[in-house]
């Protein structure tokens, strides 16, 4: 087993160059807070109520901000908040919270409520754990405290704290109605643009079953019985690796990190699943399936590859995607000439290096300005990044693909690579890049 690098903050003492816990610098910070991170991880659980305990900024400015899709229940799309006013803050906000919890139970009767603390409720010392415990006893449903106020740190830390909440209060509290020998959990896949449905279909083709989706298109019960799985695959977030590690400790469930971006990574992930499930039949099935899919995909990609070969991309995205998308792009013949590593761990960076070699530029931090500098210097053709940088690229007339949470295209699996190729070609070939270069028919004013 590879050397572990827990992204947990308490370990950063032993690991001085650990980046996940770096303090944001006033005046040059970018990115979300721990509250944001906790919501990212938990909000995709679609049948529970998500209650934000704080004044309006935390809930009001953030709800419906992400593209996690649900195939059924949509309770998670309700924006629920105690919306504290000054008076309530002065009096501690406890009554408001208890009333809100009961209001939710009366109105929606959800299987559980996640209650998020915020900077203000943490600051005034609301004892979230105690309130949730006593309401759980009174109401008979799980009221789960999520102690991840914004000011404790970064988004990744929030992901991890959300994982802790699941470990402490949810996982291991129920049994699945049925189990199969090839059950796995996906951890850290949030079903952006419906990606988890493509992954599910892909896995089903070789007979692998997803027992618990943590948490994309997830339901409360499936997270409760996650401990009955045979294997954990951590898909997208190193920040949740601690969850997989603790499940190994507690329940003896092996885990691995993998990705479904690109054919190579997809095949590798399927092979790893088969190997770790240690089943000859599955190993053979995966072998046959991946051979066939890769061959098919190769034919389908031929024309795209001709068009994409030698194009230069700059990639700026968080954590795992920074290395997993690299493989996908390289398979299409694209040269990745710059990679953002602002949210990557050292392990991620090592993997990036493995893939792009010593020459490509790593963009450590510095936001939009640095990205553009690298893009110009490396003579990039296309920028692949998150939505917040989309209009930055457009202002500079740079072709752009959105790879983060607000996007509308699913890029996972063999199908996803083809879709990515299509998107890239369509974007690069769009006439807009030529037409915006035209000068107006009048002289400068």
């Amino acid at each position, binding site marked *: 087993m590879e050397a572990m690098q827990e992204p947990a903050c308490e370990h950063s003492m032993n690991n001085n160059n650990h980046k996940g816990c770096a303090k944001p610098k006033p005046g040059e910070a970018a990115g979300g807070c721990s509250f944001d991170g906790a919501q990212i991880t938990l909000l995709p659980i679609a049948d529970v109520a998500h209650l934000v305990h704080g004044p309006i900024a935390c809930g009001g400015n953030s709800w419906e901000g992400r593209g996690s899709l649900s195939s059924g229940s949509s309770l998670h799309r309700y924006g629920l908040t*105690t919306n504290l006013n000054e008076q309530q803050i002065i009096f501690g906000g406890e009554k408001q919270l208890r009333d809100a919890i009961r209001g939710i139970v009366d109105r929606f009767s959800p299987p559980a409520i996640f209650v998020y603390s915020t900077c203000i409720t943490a600051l005034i010392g609301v004892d979230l754990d105690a309130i949730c415990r006593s309401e759980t006893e009174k109401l008979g449903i799980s009221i789960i405290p999520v102690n991840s106020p914004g000011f404790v740190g970064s988004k990744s830390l929030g992901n991890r704290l959300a994982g802790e909440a699941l470990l402490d209060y949810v996982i291991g509290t129920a049994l699945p109605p049925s189990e199969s020998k090839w059950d796995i959990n996906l951890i850290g896949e949030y079903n952006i643009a419906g990606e988890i449905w493509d992954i599910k279909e892909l896995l089903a083709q070789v007979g692998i079953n997803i027992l618990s989706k943590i948490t994309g298109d997830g339901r409360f019960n499936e997270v409760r019985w996650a401990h009955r799985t045979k294997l954990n695959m951590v898909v997208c977030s190193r920040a949740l690796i601690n969850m997989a590690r603790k499940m190994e400790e507690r329940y003896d469930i092996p885990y691995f990190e993998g990705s479904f971006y690109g054919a190579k990574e997809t095949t590798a992930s399927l092979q790893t699943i088969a190997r770790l499930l240690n089943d000859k039949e599955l190993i053979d099935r995966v072998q046959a399936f991946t051979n066939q899919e890769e061959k098919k995909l190769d034919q389908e990609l031929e024309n795209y590859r001709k068009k994409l070969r030698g194009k230069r991309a700059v990639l700026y995205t968080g954590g795992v995607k920074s290395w997993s998308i690299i493989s996908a792009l390289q398979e299409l013949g694209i040269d990745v000439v710059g990679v953002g590593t602002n949210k990557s761990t050292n392990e991620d960076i090592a993997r990036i290096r493995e893939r792009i070699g010593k020459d490509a530029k790593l963009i450590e931090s510095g936001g939009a300005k640095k990205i553009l500098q690298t893009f110009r210097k490396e003579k990039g053709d296309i920028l692949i990044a998150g939505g917040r940088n989309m209009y930055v690229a457009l202002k500079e007339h740079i072709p752009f693909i959105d790879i983060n949470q607000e996007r509308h295209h699913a890029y996972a699996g063999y199908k996803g690579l083809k879709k990515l190729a299509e998107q890239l070609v369509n974007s690069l070939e769009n006439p807009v890049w030529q037409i915006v270069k035209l000068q107006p028919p009048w002289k400068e004013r």
Partner: protein
Amino acid sequence: MVTYKTEKELTINPLKVSQTLGGVLALQGFYQAIPIVHGSQGCAAFIKALLTQHYQEPIAIQTTALQEMNIIFGAEQSMIQAMDTVLEKHKPSIVAVLSTGLTETAGDDLIGNVANYIKGLNKECGCFVFPVALPDFEGSLESGYSRTVEAMIRQLLKREKVCVSNKKIKNQINFLPGAHLTPGDVMEIKRILHSFGFTVVTAPDLSTSLAGNQGLGYSPLTQGGISYNQSKQLVSSEWTIAVGASMAGAAKIMEEIAGIPFRVFPSLSGLKANDEFFSFLQEISKQPVSPFYHWERDTLVDCLLDAHFSFLGKKVVLALEPDHLYSFITLCKELGLKFDGLVTSFSTNILSKMEEEIIIGDLDDLEKMAASADLWISSSHGEQGANRMNIPFMPLGFPIFHQLGNSLVTSVGYRGTIETIIKLGNLLK
């Protein structure tokens, strides 16, 4: 008439956003400006994400990135550090430091601290710095925006004391657009004012910053809006025109300190409102109305006739920020539409004087009143409720997701009114 729902223990599907967001929006209308949000980094990140999605433009914003320890040991150091960094790295012309619920609760004296910081600023640094207190447990987008404009103008008048006594410039007027106006609305009103021969000083001016200006490339600072030097002109104008009741405060400050008379137009949507506007402009400019607007008004009258069939007996529900709501209520009344529910984010004078019942509440309150409505008008957050009620949805207000042209939609002037009536008519027919 305004009814409070303050006893509510739980807000379901909030209409409200934080005041700080309104402050950040206002700053986008000043050139080479940047707001610094004094809070945890998430306070700024959420605002940036939301404004970027709605306006489809890069948003200038920074943060003091407070961590737990900074709150406990005093947030002033983080503010100073953020200011130093932003001034040194980006050389902005205008910086506003905006407080949040977090720093307000922690008892941080932002106003005093920023005043001290300004005193210590190097004389060569020409940057205009001002603080605004914007706790998010009161008000909403509109009040955050108007308070920020007020704070800006107050500080400007203080800093440029010498200019205040200057002679007024003939035919120069100030235009203070409210938070509910899109960049397209602002441009439409500027165009109308120009047609009367006025030189217009617009503050803040979103029409040149969030409507899609080109040619300058990307910068961490705002790339459009009114510059600091241009805004010094505010003090030499003959008139101030405020659009939106929320802008009356800023106009009053100009009157008190610089002696500039003002007129507030609470709405510029609808025939009557625009007739009043044009006759006022005719009067103060002593210029005739351009024939183009004769044509527009004729077209509007014809449009009202053609469209009225669509509005017979129809009922709408509306959830908008106060001035926006006022504006749409008056327009809908001209069209003969009835209201099944009206919701806003906080109480204002102008709304409390209306005869309609307006609820301070959330989108869930609107949903409860929407059962037999024919049209739902609100921000994109209302779309799920409209879908559950199975009634047509018209996105309006903030935020609007997944739709092009949020910056350009126009509902003011004769032309904007026509555009809006056509949209309403098509949804209601």
